[in-house]
């Protein structure tokens, strides 16, 4: 029984090779391109919304709300899957030294289901997108069209898309875990894995545990909508001039189920981002990662804490104040693994000879955004302060700084870093640098201003602010944000241009242009169908042996024998005889 594709020939036909491909590299690129497309749509929605909020009122309130819902949902589909599914798919098998994923067919299925999820989501935009936000809190989302426009068919399609996403993510997660555990090459012990692999593994484990919960919640919500059950709908709701037939459900149940998924979901995005950044940063700092073991430990911390802090989204939701207390304290503890990462980055950079190439710039931007977003979280985590900050623009600013901006910076870093291996060409450094500065400054101005608007008590999801006197001072802030957001969104054209131009006209890349250490850089461009053309190389060290004393070059590939700085030399390394 063998499922590796070393034993079958590379498919010849175009369709089997590039469309319905089971090759993890093709699937990785498919993910990347599909998600770039969806991200552009999501960004376009932002442009419309910012135009409406800060420059001229052009939308109906319900249109604003549907655009907002679609923006969040699309980005959440996109951002969720990109760090893991695009880069994880392409580079996890390469970095652990495998010929493919453990389940190539499941991998293909996972992509097509994810794509279907994205398309169904887009189709809900056409029939009238829901206005219930990406959290889809019932009863608004559960009782159908009587609650508002878009809550009929649009909301149902939205739910179908979410269900598809769950299925796709579960298949992906299963595959990632099996591959990491089962397909490592000789000498690649768990403590020698590149940190990026650890990140993908962590995301997969988290995903495997929480996506089923969302899908169960989704089934119940779908039944509430289509089967007229009342899981999330209490008795005696009066909507649209009549009393609804539902009886006895609890809207809070959905919030519990949703956030049990929703909070770890943030880690599913940010943890692989952090890990990819750590990996890339070590390369451009030419320094071994500081505290690799602690990083791995703190990943376990993220998974564990991620599963027990969902209640901090519900401090004012009407759940028991005692649980609020518990969730608040637990949430503050999340700062520990996060700080371990921050300290590791700082220490890795300290005194390093930094090469300021675009991948590194994005990593540095990531760290800065991560610190800013992270300290903001210390405010929300305190239940008493969250009474004020909850559901205000503070939260919008906070989540975008971390969940959106930091994550997208890691994606930019990864694209610039791995582009040569994926497409055999280099991206343009100058364009990358300009794009970096525009995006970083833009992100800070936009989202720090939003934090600041939170002080006013500006509720989020407001289509207009003219009604309230206490929001009058926010009008100029909205204009500022909109202008900067339009410029920043415009700057993304630089990136898209750089990406597509380099795809065809970039400088041809060498096998290992960044003098990097992990296994993918031992492979020729383009990477052959079964990755390692002959035997899979044996690994003798971790991926962060930079600046070794006394070496001829300032790095050692993982395949190079000899003493390493990973503290495990001699352990688990096969003797020469056995190769």
């Amino acid at each position, binding site marked *: 029984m063998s499922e590796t594709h070393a034993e079958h020939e590379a498919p010849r036909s175009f369709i089997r090779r590039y469309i319905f491909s089971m090759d993890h590299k093709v699937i990785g690129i498919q993910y990347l391109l599909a998600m770039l497309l969806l991200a552009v749509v999501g960004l376009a929605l932002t442009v419309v919304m910012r135009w409406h909020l800060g420059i001229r009122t052009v939308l109906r309130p319900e249109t604003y709300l549907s655009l907002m819902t679609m923006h969040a949902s699309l980005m959440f589909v996109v951002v969720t899957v990109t760090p893991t599914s695009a880069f994880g798919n392409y580079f996890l098998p390469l970095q652990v030294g495998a010929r493919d994923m453990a389940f190539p067919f499941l991998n293909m299925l996972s992509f097509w289901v994810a794509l279907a999820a994205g398309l169904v989501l887009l189709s809900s935009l056409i029939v009238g997108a829901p206005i219930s936000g990406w959290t889809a809190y019932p009863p608004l989302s559960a009782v159908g069209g009587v609650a508002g426009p878009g809550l009929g068919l649009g909301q149902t399609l939205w739910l179908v898309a979410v269900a598809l996403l769950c299925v796709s993510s579960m298949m992906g997660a299963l595959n990632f875990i099996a591959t990491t555990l089962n397909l490592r090459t000789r000498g690649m012990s768990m403590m020698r894995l590149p940190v990026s692999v650890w990140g993908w593994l962590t995301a997969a484990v988290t995903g495997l545990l929480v996506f089923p919960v969302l899908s169960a919640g989704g089934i119940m919500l779908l039944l509430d909508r289509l089967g007229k059950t009342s899981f999330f709908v209490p008795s005696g709701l009066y909507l649209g001039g009549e009393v609804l037939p539902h009886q006895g459900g609890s809207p809070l149940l959905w919030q519990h189920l949703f956030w049990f998924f929703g909070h770890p979901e943030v880690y599913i995005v940010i943890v692989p981002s952090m890990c990819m950044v750590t990996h890339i940063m070590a390369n451009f*700092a030419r320094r071994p990662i500081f505290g690799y073991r602690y990083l791995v430990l703190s990943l376990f911390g993220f998974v564990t804490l991620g599963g027990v802090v969902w209640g901090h989204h519900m401090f004012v*939701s009407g759940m028991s*104040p005692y649980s609020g*207390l518990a969730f608040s304290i637990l949430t503050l503890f999340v700062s520990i693994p996060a700080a371990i990462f921050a300290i590791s980055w700082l*220490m890795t950079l300290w*005194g390093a000879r930094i090469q300021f190439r675009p991948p590194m710039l994005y990593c540095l931007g990531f760290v800065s955004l991560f610190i800013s977003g992270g300290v903001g979280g210390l405010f929300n985590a305190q239940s008493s302060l969250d009474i*004020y900050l909850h559901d205000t623009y503070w939260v919008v600013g906070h989540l975008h700084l971390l969940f959106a901006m930091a994550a997208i910076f890691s994606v930019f870093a990864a694209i610039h870093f791995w582009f040569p291996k994926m497409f055999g060409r280099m991206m343009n450094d100058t364009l990358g640098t300009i794009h970096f500065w525009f995006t970083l400054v833009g992100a800070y101005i936009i989202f720090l201003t939003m934090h600041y608007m939170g002080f006013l*008590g500006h509720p989020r999801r407001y*289509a207009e602010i003219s009604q309230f006197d206490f929001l009058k001072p926010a009008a100029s802030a909205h204009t500022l944000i909109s202008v900067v957001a339009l410029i920043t969104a415009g700057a993304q054209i630089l990136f898209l241009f750089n990406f597509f131009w380099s795809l065809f006209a970039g400088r041809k890349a060498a096998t290992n242009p960044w003098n990097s250490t992990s296994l993918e850089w031992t492979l020729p461009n383009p990477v052959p169908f079964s990755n390692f053309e002959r035997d899979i190389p044996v690994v003798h060290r971790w991926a962060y042996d930079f600046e070794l004393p006394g070496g001829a070059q300032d790095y050692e590939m993982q395949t190079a024998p000899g003493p390493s700085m990973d503290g495990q030399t001699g352990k688990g390394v096969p003797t020469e005889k056995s190769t």
Partner: protein
Amino acid sequence: MRRAVAWLVFWLVAAGVVAAFYKRVLWFPPAVSEHGLSMDSQFSVSFLVIGTLFVAAQALFGYAVLRGRGKSGQPPSFWPSNPRFEKRLILAIVGVFSMGSEKAWANMYFRKPSPDALEIELTAEQFAWNVRYPGADGQFGDTAPKFITRANPIGLNPSSRSGGDDLVLLNEVRVPAQRRVRLTLRSKDVLHSFWVPNLRLKQDIVPGLAIQVEFLATKTGQFEIACAELCGLGHFRMKGTLIVMEAQEFDQWLEEESE
């Protein structure tokens, strides 16, 4: 030249931020409730500690990056880390916040309901606030969804004995200053959230539940009530007014309204 421009930009931004904080542009509206003051002081502490942490972390990070510029050929230098110190620092931060913050939280939620609080019921709907005072008998009449009409927005049972004198207002909550008020929050349709920035009070309103919150307003004046939980297309327009009056003025008003 480039350096001069960079410095200029830096100082301009810094001056702008300081000025914005100093002039209290987009700052918290003044607190007018008892618990609001303790929340504000907790916020000030957090702001100071976290602000310092934020500046220190970013500065340290910036310094590390700048030091790495243009260095070549020099052997890398390591900063001896002190994990024990770092761990203690983080635990101290967690400790400070959990104690301070949870005290403020407990002050608000873990107190016995005061027996002499003024009872007001607030029933939210898409997209308005129905406000009910119990009237002279001090008792709310019973309600049911089946009695709801446009003219009877909260569904008062017409045959209810204690309901006859209930006073129902729309989008207007009047309370006396310096007296505890107990709000019972209900919703007719979807989730809403009762949000008065000046009161430092935000509470989601869940259909099917009657959630009670207490507050004591310290200053008279008119304050806006906003909805803070997405409730549909008119979410942004769901506005109410909280009017805090002097005690006798309030009594007088209540008498006049319920004649």
